[in-house]
């Protein structure tokens, strides 16, 4: 078997979808941190949770192991790393476009490091594009989303919370 490269492993792992936002990959989300391969072909993959209680981590770990196992890489360790803490700032530009396309408003603005969540910026409706929207609940269908509604088209929608 030819030598396993970091690039090859990363390309496979980067395509793993997030179980709760399957439109995004774990790379788009910034959940995938580092990939290491040593001389013996031993692979280590670092992932970080979005929220402390994110229930998707076990599924992501299993998916990473399975995809690498499918191409014959069995010597794989998936590590959960906490630092630096994940932030919505880590969602890539392409990730933001995919979210919007999927009907989920991407996070608005940048996370205020060390600050509370006092400021609510306008969130644009992913359906009709109107900025005349209102927050229904700060806690939505998953830990990372809030529930919003559009005053223009009357549709409810999910919005990723700035964290």
């Amino acid at each position, binding site marked *: 078997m030819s030598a396993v490269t970091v690039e090859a492993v990363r390309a496979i792992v980067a395509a793993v979808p997030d179980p709760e936002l399957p439109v995004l990959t774990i790379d788009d989300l910034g959940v995938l941190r580092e990939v290491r391969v040593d001389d013996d072909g031993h692979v280590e993959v670092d992932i970080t*949770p979005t*929220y*402390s*209680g*994110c*229930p998707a981590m076990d599924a992501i770990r299993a998916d990473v192991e399975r995809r690498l196992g499918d191409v014959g890489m069995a010597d794989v360790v998936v590590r959960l790393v*906490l*630092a*630096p*803490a*994940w*932030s919505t700032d880590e969602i890539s530009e392409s990730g933001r476009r995919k979210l919007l396309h999927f009907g989920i408003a991407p996070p608005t603005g940048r*996370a205020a490091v*060390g600050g*509370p*969540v*006092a400021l609510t910026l306008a969130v644009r409706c992913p359906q009709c594009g109107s900025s005349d929207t209102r927050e*229904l*609940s*700060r*806690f*939505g*269908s998953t*830990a990372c989303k809030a*529930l919003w509604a559009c005053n223009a088209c009357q549709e409810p929608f999910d919005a990723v*919370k700035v*964290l």
Partner: protein
Amino acid sequence: MTWSDSDKSTAVGAYALRLGDDALVLAHRMAEWIASAPELEEDVALANIGLDLLGQARMLLTYAGEVDGTGRSEDDLAYFRDEREFVNCQLVELPNGDFALTMARMLVFAAYQYELYDRLCSSSDETLAAVAAKAVKEVAYHRDHATRWVLRLGDGTAKSQQRMQAGLDTIWPYVAELFEADELVHGLVGGGIAVDPAELRDPTTDYLTTVIEQATLTVPDTSVWHTGGRRGIHTEALGYLLAEMQHLARTHPGAPW
């Protein structure tokens, strides 16, 4: 105080266990609201807040069992310790009461936890610092959520104001315990590992006083302060909570999902 390395590891584990037990027990109280909250959005919110706390608890208990050298897993610690071995503060174990009491408790606890985690981010213990850096952002949302409800209920109708005040009055005797320190904490504060709880009292109290006054409520006046949780002394409520939380794991040891 000078500690040997193993004494220090034991102390860090004991400290992590306190923080973890606080989060675990309150997570369970939040979960009790699921399908019983006043509105659907609130069901979702309280479940999400409980999930954040549960995530924090899992990281802290896992670390406690590793660092103290006992090799106990998060499940060993959550499901196979008895009441007297739990070292959470009494505030988090109090029954939920009505929605106002639940919000009064969330306001106090999130305000305290926010100040705590904000400082623990600078701990010389890398794991505690990493857990805190993650959790402080979540707790900011919890504090904000409770603040909004306390303002709305306090400055609402005569009935909602009366119940919000009653909620605060009931939990207030349990607030002082949050700011107590013992030899364990003092030793860890000296080593730059733990946060001195006394340091949290003023910023937490300032935040609470501002919200309570804005909500046209009164900061309760109490002469009785309950304490003992860090030594395993608990109110009657914790035993019932643990009976429910631990039942499945003890009936079917080792059962996975």
